[in-house]
């Protein structure tokens, strides 16, 4: 392309965006690493100073950290897993012709544009132990004999917040997969019909392989977003009761709110490294695609 003559133009055009990103992401990320090797507790300002790896050792010995990390794993596996399953089902349904399909496609995306705070609060009200509608429905259907305070019980609180994150993520999966489905050539299915393939054969031999890249990209993006998500859990339970719904991001946020900035920086550096490991294959893929 006509690149030789363009000279400084391309760099000049990228510069403003680059400056903002540098100032708000890369410099703070570097600072976070610096803070993670300091004692930095705003409630103990006299003790602020470098302490080497002490925070990291503290984190390794913190059983709450390991519990939260384990919970993050469950949160991601079940959350993203079911988002994918139901999102895929929704995409397949919305890909078939029926009256009112345009409207159905639009309204099914509303959870995706809803603020996390509101999602947390809406579901908190639905799960309410005294006036909650979920208890009313389950009681009327005869599934339970007495109302369950879903978010106050150790055994039900975590599944309850996972259901909420599943609800939030279904539309995004459906949106991406639906776009992918529309790109699968119809002839493939026609040929399969002639060969006498059944629905499942067509699904696993044609649909899934054709969508492989979409599934891959969407799942990785969701894993990162869900692992980082704070607002839904924070507004439903704050991580409680007794830390039973506290993921690592929520633990970090709670520690930061408690003004222990050094310790929470240490944990967030660890979380970032873990997520970067997950993202490496995605980045490689991205890098390859940019080449052509």
């Amino acid at each position, binding site marked *: *392309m006509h*690149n030789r003559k363009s000279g400084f*133009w*391309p760099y000049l055009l*990228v510069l*403003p*965006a*680059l400056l*903002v*990103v540098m*100032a*708000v*992401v890369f*410099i*703070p990320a570097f*600072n*976070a690493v610096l*803070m993670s090797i300091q004692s930095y507790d705003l409630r103990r300002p006299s003790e602020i100073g470098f302490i080497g790896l002490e925070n990291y050792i503290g984190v390794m010995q913190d059983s709450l950290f390991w519990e939260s990390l384990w919970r993050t794993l469950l949160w991601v596996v079940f959350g993203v897993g079911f988002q994918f399953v139901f999102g895929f*089902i929704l995409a397949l*349904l*919305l890909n078939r012709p*029926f009256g009112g399909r345009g409207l159905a496609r639009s*309204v*099914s*995306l*509303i959870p995706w*544009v*809803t*603020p*996390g*705070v*509101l999602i947390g*609060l*809406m579901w908190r*009200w*639905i799960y309410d132990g005294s*006036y909650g509608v979920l208890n009313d429905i389950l009681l009327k259907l005869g599934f339970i004999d007495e109302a369950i305070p879903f978010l106050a019980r150790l055994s039900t609180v975590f599944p309850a917040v996972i259901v909420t994150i599943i609800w939030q993520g*279904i539309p995004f999966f459906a*949106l*991406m997969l*639906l*776009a*992918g489905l529309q790109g699968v050539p119809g002839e493939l299915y026609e040929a399969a019909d002639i060969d006498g393939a059944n629905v499942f054969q067509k699904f696993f031999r044609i649909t899934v392989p054709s969508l492989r890249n*979409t599934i891959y990209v*969407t799942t990785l993006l969701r894993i990162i977003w869900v*692992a980082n998500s*704070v*607002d839904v859990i*924070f507004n439903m339970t704050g991580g409680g009761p007794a830390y039973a719904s506290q993921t690592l*991001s929520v633990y*970090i*946020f709670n520690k*930061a709110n408690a003004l222990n900035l050094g310790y929470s*920086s240490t944990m*967030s550096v660890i979380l970032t490294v873990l*997520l970067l490991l997950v993202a490496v294959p995605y980045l490689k*893929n*991205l*890098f390859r695609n940019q*080449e052509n």
Partner: protein
Amino acid sequence: MKGKENRFYRLLNLHIPLILLLLFLLFPFYWTLVTSIKPARELYGSVVTYWPRQITFEAYKKLFFDYNFLKPMGNSLLVAFFTTALTLFVASLASYSFSRFRFRGRRLLMILFLTNNMFPTVLLLIPLYAIMRRLGILYTPLALVLSYTTFTIPFSIWLLNGYLSDLPQSLEEAAMVDGANRPQAFTRIILPILIPCLIATGVYIFMTSWNEYTFAVMFTNEESRTIPVSLKNLIGQLGVQWDLLTAGGIITIIPVCIMFFFAQRRLVEGLTAGAVKG
């Protein structure tokens, strides 16, 4: 007979699962709306009603008059507006560069932008808080505008790059042959065609800034509080008042929903193009 059977199967494998899924996705909104227009007596009564026996807009009135909800709405609008303007400006320049020039470091820069929303918000939150405080812009709308601009840059560049790559180079080349320089070619030829795409991208940016909570709760005070923070703050002043909260929720999502429905088609096209092509 065959037609009937088909209709039965369609009911079983299309209509029923679709209705169940949509019910699951939309019921919380219905419930929020119904809760917001119930009188407190009915809300905390012994029977749960699925449509209010008596409709009241008391909660909405209280929000605007007693809780001054217009204030955080104004703050959110201000932040979202400036974020949208700033992001659109820097992102359209950058994506024009990416789509029209091949230069050293192009690939690296594009990846730099795409990876920046992989950093956990909690990682950036603390150092940014310190930086904003030192710069003296903590608790001003500028703190949020800067933060949100950064989050929305990657997706905006992705979106605009996709749209721009679909526009043939020959458009500007023709103008440049006629004696226009590159900035003129951009503002006179490309920009007018790009406007619908800029609007769609703008809607995405606006929604993201309007909805954000985690940064807003740390970077604002009583004066600069945005809607999501005010919504959460309704809890705790007098316990949880669900009629007020749900009314606040409805007010929060209405502008977003309206904008989303207008821009939806192009936004979805742009958003999915990258993933499907890539």
